């Protein structure tokens, strides 16, 4: 299968995964491995003052040599906070400039604030960041993010962590048809069929966290998602048969039946 290309870099997996909400780092590691993902999102947070020096960290479970870290701005409600967070991330990750920008607008729905996101994206791109942007499924906003230089546009399928699946495939389809940069569904996937649907629409990839982390068996679900993304992408490439509404078409020969 042809690789996913983001900002000129090739990735063999079209599944991107978050690293939050797992029981422990061991479960995180096992789930990420089972997912086959190359790109993993991480959050940037204040360190616990007084933490023991030898305490394990996420970077031990998921070595940056093996995975592409995608620092996010989860929890940021202003362009300024998002920009500061990603500047810290770049320093933390030795100049790594591929980032996931999200600026939220509401604590209940975690719906993106597109106006603030546009503001932040402009500053970040100017400062040399390669911005993968979380946004609503508004095709005009998606077009604006591409025009300003975002390296991937990542519309929601439904609310973050809701598992409600692909609520508006029609909007996603418009965005996929119009954009040239990778369109990656980010947020809302609940189970494997959701991921497959996103890929069948023609998405370049799917980013998820809760669907795996909050499955009853996260490691098994991670593997299911790997297969779903591959299956959905292959089905997209293969091109589905046309739908024949209320018109059956037998798959077996109509002649040569016994007793005829």
């Amino acid at each position, binding site marked *: 299968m042809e690789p996913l290309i983001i900002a000129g870099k090739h990735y063999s997996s079209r599944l991107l995964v978050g690293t*939050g909400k797992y029981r422990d780092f061991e479960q995180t590691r096992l789930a990420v491995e089972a997912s086959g993902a190359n790109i993993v999102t*991480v*959050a940037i*947070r204040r360190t616990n003052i007084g933490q023991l020096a030898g305490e394990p*960290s*996420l970077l031990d479970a998921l070595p940056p040599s093996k995975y592409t870290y995608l620092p996010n701005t989860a929890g940021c409600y202003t362009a300024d906070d998002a920009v*500061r967070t990603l500047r*810290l991330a770049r320093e933390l990750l030795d100049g790594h400039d591929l980032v996931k920008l999200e600026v939220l607008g509401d604590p209940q729905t975690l719906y993106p604030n597109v106006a603030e996101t546009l503001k932040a994206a402009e500053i970040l791109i100017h400062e040399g960041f390669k911005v993968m942007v979380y946004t609503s499924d508004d095709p005009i906003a998606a077009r604006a993010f591409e025009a300003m230089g975002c390296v991937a546009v990542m519309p929601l399928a439904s609310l973050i962590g809701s598992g409600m699946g692909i609520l508006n495939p029609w909007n996603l389809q418009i965005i996929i048809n119009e954009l040239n940069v990778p369109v990656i569904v980010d947020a809302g996937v609940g189970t494997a069929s959701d991921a497959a649907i996103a890929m069948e629409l023609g998405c370049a990839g799917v980013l998820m966290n809760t669907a795996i982390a909050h499955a009853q068996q996260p490691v098994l679900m991670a593997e299911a998602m790997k297969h779903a993304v591959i299956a959905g992408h292959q089905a997209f490439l293969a091109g589905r048969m046309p739908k024949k509404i209320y018109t059956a078409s037998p798959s077996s020969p109509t002649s040569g039946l016994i007793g005829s």
Partner: protein
Amino acid sequence: MVITLIVNGQPRAFNSNSTLTQLLDELNLTGKRLAVERNGEIVPRSQHATTQLHEGDQLEVVVAVGGG
């Protein structure tokens, strides 16, 4: 002389004429993968040893954690 710094939102007494490297050492953070912002500006790792801290400095010390 003792100065007061704001580290991750909390006030903290610290010796004057000390550097960021000394503060991180006192906080048991030496060797950890982290990033520091002082008064809204990133302090690159290469400048930790030469960055003098002053009364009222606001420091953010961050790490990578699990997130989606």
